[in-house]
């Protein structure tokens, strides 16, 4: 495999990146590198700064401090379009697809194929339908009807359509913001499978999630954010699922919480119970 050479040079490299909103430090001194053929998992609690980080990576926000390089050059994309041209594709949980548009139109949205000279330039409908169908087949999803509105697909299928689209349009880096958050076990499994398919296709994948189990199934490198700062950044080899879960839950904090819960549990509920019984009587 040639990936050993590629793997040594990161596609994306963030060094000591920071971002503030007014006096809120959403991110401080975050360093991260993303390599081709690797899945980098970003974990963290609500408000830890995950979304802010990916918005910087995908060019929606400009970082305040630190440096951000794409393929060795400073990143200066200011729109999702620019970022796409740099090979960075982002699949957001909710805003990946247009529900009422047919599958094939969604697949090519923003990158439509056309034929004919200008005043008569038109969509190459036949080619678009065929390619969309082929690409989805390649990913192993069988959409019953390429003309059906995307809104009629299941949540997992929709994510996979978005992933297939990013891969087809030559993304080098694929960012997935909590793709499994709203999905059931089976559907999550489908999405995780395609995440590893994307990695095997040579993409650098950034996978944002709350769920250490999902992360550990596909991740090569794990980053945990806490209150805008790096809490952990470690390759898979140096970590077990237990470590990850422990870190993710806040380690020591969890132990304390466990104790606390054990202490209050019984007497408090008992008291509530008594009170209720008195009321009923």
């Amino acid at each position, binding site marked *: 495999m040639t990936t050993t050479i590629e793997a040594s040079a990161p596609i994306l490299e963030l060094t000591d990146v920071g971002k503030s909103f007014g006096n809120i430090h959403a991110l401080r001194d975050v360093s991260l590198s993303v390599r081709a053929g690797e899945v980098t998992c970003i974990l963290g609690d609500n408000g830890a700064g995950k979304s802010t980080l990916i918005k910087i990576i995908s060019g929606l926000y400009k970082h305040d401090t630190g440096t951000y390089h794409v393929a060795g050059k400073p990143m200066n994309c200011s*729109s*999702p*379009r620019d970022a*796409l041209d740099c090979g960075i594709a*982002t699949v*957001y949980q909710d*805003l*990946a*697809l*247009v*529900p*009422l*548009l047919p599958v094939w*139109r969604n697949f*090519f*949205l*923003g*990158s*439509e194929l*056309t034929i004919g000279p200008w005043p008569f*330039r*038109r*969509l190459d*409908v036949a080619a678009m339908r065929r390619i969309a169908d082929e690409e989805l087949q390649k*990913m*192993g*999803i*069988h*959409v*019953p*009807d390429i003309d*059906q*509105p995307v*809104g*009629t697909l299941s949540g*997992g*299928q929709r994510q*996979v359509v978005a992933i297939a*689209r990013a891969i087809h349009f030559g993304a080098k880096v694929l960012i997935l913001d909590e793709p499994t958050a709203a999905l059931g076990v*089976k559907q999550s*499994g*489908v999405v995780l499978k395609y995440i590893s398919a994307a990695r095997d296709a040579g993409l650098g994948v950034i996978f944002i999630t709350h769920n250490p189990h999902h992360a550990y199934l596909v991740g090569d490198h794990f980053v945990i954010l806490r209150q805008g700062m790096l809490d952990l950044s470690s390759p898979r080899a140096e970590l077990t699922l237990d470590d990850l879960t422990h870190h993710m839950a806040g380690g020591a904090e969890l132990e304390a919480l466990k104790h606390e819960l054990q202490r209050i549990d019984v007497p408090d509920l008992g008291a509530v119970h008594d009170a209720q019984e008195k009321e009923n009587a």
Partner: protein
Amino acid sequence: MTAGGDPARITKRSLGRRFVTRPEVGSLVGAIAVFALFFAVAMPFRELDSLSTVLYASSTIGIMAVGVSLLMIGGEFDLSAGVGVITSALAAGMFAYELSLNVWVGAGLALMLSLGIGFLNGYMVVKTKLPSFLITLSMFLMLQGLNLAVTRTVTGSVASPPISDMDGFASAQKVFSSTFTVGGVSVQLTVLWWILFVALATWVLLRTKVGNWIYAAGGNADAARAVGVPVNYTKIGLFMTVGFMAWFVGMHNLFRFNTVQSGEGVGQELIYIAAAVIGGCALMGGWGTAIGAAIGALILGMAQQGVVYAGWNPDLFMFFIGATLLIAVVLNLWVRTRAHRR
């Protein structure tokens, strides 16, 4: 295979249901019903001449409905479309008359003005991110005031000056307001323009990039932006398309009647929106067709003339539109929930 549907589910989306969930099918049924109604109750409605009158009434609503429906599919409204027609006609008349220009030059200046108004509407909507309802309501009120005030200041009356003896009037009238004869019946040229605009809009919507962008901008603007669709340009372009159509209908009014009353146009914007909605365009965008809007305009045209032919109180026209609209929106709701159901 986990990601695929099982075959039993797939067959459910039958050909019949796909037909029923087309945006324009409900309105087509409606059009046939309205036609049958007036055919039954109004004797004069059955004559060929009446058909020509109905088509003419439909075309003046329908040309505007083309722009308004595209805009609505793109997720926005234009409440200034009705008075915008009059603004354009007044401007062309007054420019030509006051500056003693060829009427074509006046028409050209009016076109700039109409496109400019459309641009301003669109620019303010995408910059402020306020609902287009508010922006274009403001524009509507401002234009309504300006139409009256500027006309009175410039001409000293409530109408634009007569321009029928000016250079270029004859040729402009040929383009915007002439008639042709088919099978002994005289038909307004606007009917052909209407068909042309509908065909063009249909082609753009279904067969070009821009059409894809219009549906996406109205269906999920954030998703469209995230994959690189220039949503803001698309929306501004749609407002300018409404501006263009307003200019076209304005020119028709001007060259048909030679002069235009400055207080007209108020309330028409709702007729255009009604045509689009009756034709199956979703109020919130992302769904609809230009052909649907044309059928909507046809229903309104039939109603407008049918009420007269039937000898009913003409005031009932508005009631009729209201009732049709109500039925259409309920029908749309039903179709949409069916389309979404798996």
